[in-house]
């Protein structure tokens, strides 16, 4: 991967203070220790990558951050508030959105409707008005439709907006899922292997989208990715997990030079 522009080209971009920090998170399923005493932080506007071999606990980490899993120990601090346990609804309403490793779109719904669901928390009209589809409800639907159409344009999926997502090719589905997350106008975007299973071209597109989102909207991004080229190119800092433990944390350069990381991960997997 060499194509996507790295951040050096965008001098205007400012990394801010700490937006999210996870402190001493431990999570186990029965006897399986998915995460052991993990701590790291994410600064406002940065792109933070999480890497590690299969089963290292990367997805579990994201699931703890937005409350899908409940860690047995540790705390999560987001935007100045501290949580023993996050719940997904709370996370969403505080501006955390995400995509999933195995696409988790609403298969029976059209692209448009899928992305519209991302605006769910911003819609207000009551059930009665929705049944009548008049006045405030119609206006609200239109207003959000307009926003969603911008996202559809941005992701270049105009031609399939009315297609049920179940019928779309894999790469496009990944885009739609990103669109759904973007529709919430998140402050923190969690991406679980957004480029897995894509060809070079699709990966380049996806990289561009991720960078554009980060640049244009200032969205903070936490990203899990196996493709080292991509990680080195687009991330500001990298956390490395292995067997549920953190074995490295730093800029791409630092991580690449880290002995433990090379042994545990780079040396083995690539």
């Amino acid at each position: 991967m060499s194509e996507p522009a790295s951040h050096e080209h965008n001098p205007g971009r400012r990394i801010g203070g700490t937006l999210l920090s996870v402190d001493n998170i431990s999570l186990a399923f029965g006897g399986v220790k998915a995460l052991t005493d993990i701590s790291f932080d994410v600064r406002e506007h940065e792109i933070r990558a999480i890497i590690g071999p299969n089963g290292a606990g990367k997805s579990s980490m994201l699931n703890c951050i937005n409350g899908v899993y409940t860690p047995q120990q540790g705390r999560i601090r987001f935007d100045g508030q501290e949580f023993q346990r996050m719940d997904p609804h709370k996370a969403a309403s505080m501006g955390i959105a995400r995509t999933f490793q195995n696409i988790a779109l609403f298969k029976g719904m059209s692209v448009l409707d899928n992305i519209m669901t991302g605006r769910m928390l911003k819609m207000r009209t009551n059930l009665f008005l929705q049944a009548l589809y008049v006045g405030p409800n119609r206006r609200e639907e239109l207003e959000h439709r307009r926003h969603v159409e911008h996202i559809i344009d941005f992701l270049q999926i105009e031609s399939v907006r009315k297609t049920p997502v179940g019928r779309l090719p894999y790469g496009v589905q990944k885009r739609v899922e990103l669109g759904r997350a973007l529709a919430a106008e998140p402050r923190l975007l969690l991406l679980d292997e957004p480029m897995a299973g894509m060809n070079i071209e699709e990966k380049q597109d996806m990289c561009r989208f991720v960078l554009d989102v980060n640049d244009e909207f200032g969205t903070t991004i936490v990203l899990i990715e196996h493709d080292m080229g991509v990680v080195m190119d687009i991330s500001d800092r990298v956390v490395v997990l292995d067997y549920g433990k953190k074995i490295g944390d730093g800029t791409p350069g630092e991580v690449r030079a880290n002995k433990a990381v090379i042994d545990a991960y780079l040396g083995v997997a690539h």
Partner: protein
Amino acid sequence: MLYREAGQFRTSYEADQQIFPIRQDRIAFALLMAVAVVGVPLFASDYWLTAILIPFLVFALASLGLNILTGYAGQLSLGTAAFMAVGAFAAYNFQLRVPGIPILVSFLLGGASAALVGVAFGLPSLRIKGFYLAVATLAAQFFVPWLLVKVGWFSNYSASGVITAQKIEILGFVFDSPVRRYLLVLAIVALLALAAKNLVRSRIGRAWMAVRDMDVAAEVIGIRIMRTKLIAFAVSSFYCGVAGALYAFAYLGSVEPDAFNLDLSFRILFMVIIGGVGSILGSFLGAAFITLLPILLEVLLHGGAGLLGLNLSPGTPSMMQLVVFGGLIIFFLIVEPHGLARLWQIAKEKLRLWPFPY
């Protein structure tokens, strides 16, 4: 070349968000409504009205209710008839016990009562999925009719719980003939169908489908799963309740709790499956199909037996019906899980290309 959308550019999202964005569809629908409102009353016989059209509309309404719950929100229910029973008996009691209450208000309150009962039986669904829920709704199916029989108050202490619906009178106008009752049912069903269509294309509809398709993702987006499911139960049961009230007041006239049995619940489930899971139009198509099929079957069987000089035993037609229903369900689930509604859509797409195949 009749059915073309070419040249009809939808220039605004507003136009695109209409129920029928294509002009031909709008015209066809208007024609259909004209036939239903003017043509049918002029030409349909009393038999057609009372034995086919009124039950068709009532069942369509119940299917709509079940479709909201099962087709849109993904919660399978085998207790539809129980919620209809609640609607029927509640409407009866409101008429009986509240002096001067307008009949339409009674119907609405019947629906509201059913909604309450639906929510009560839906509560366990908050923690369970799929067929667990089916069992929970069976509890409603067996409990509610029993309660209505056992507690005499519900039927004003009539024998075996039979109620005889009061006459339908709105602002002094009495709906006593089949045509009048048909028109009343048509109006109510049309309005509620419109409301259902609006709901499913609004926020709540998307929330239902999201919960149906992928509940974890729905939760992560910020949808409150429990509340969304409960609203589905409430709205669905409301529709079933109103359907039940109409079943008693406009279709049968007098009805006993045991008429709202498991068989009726299954029948409505079949309408949803054959008509189209997750489709408003499908609820109507399915209701029409399942209402007409037994009649058709009867004619065919007797015709066939007559031709062959066979002697049908009395149970045969109803057993044939079981076999055909069961077979059709399996057939549709395998071949076209989106039912008649999807077939209709495919036919329209073909028509759009006609007479040029591409």
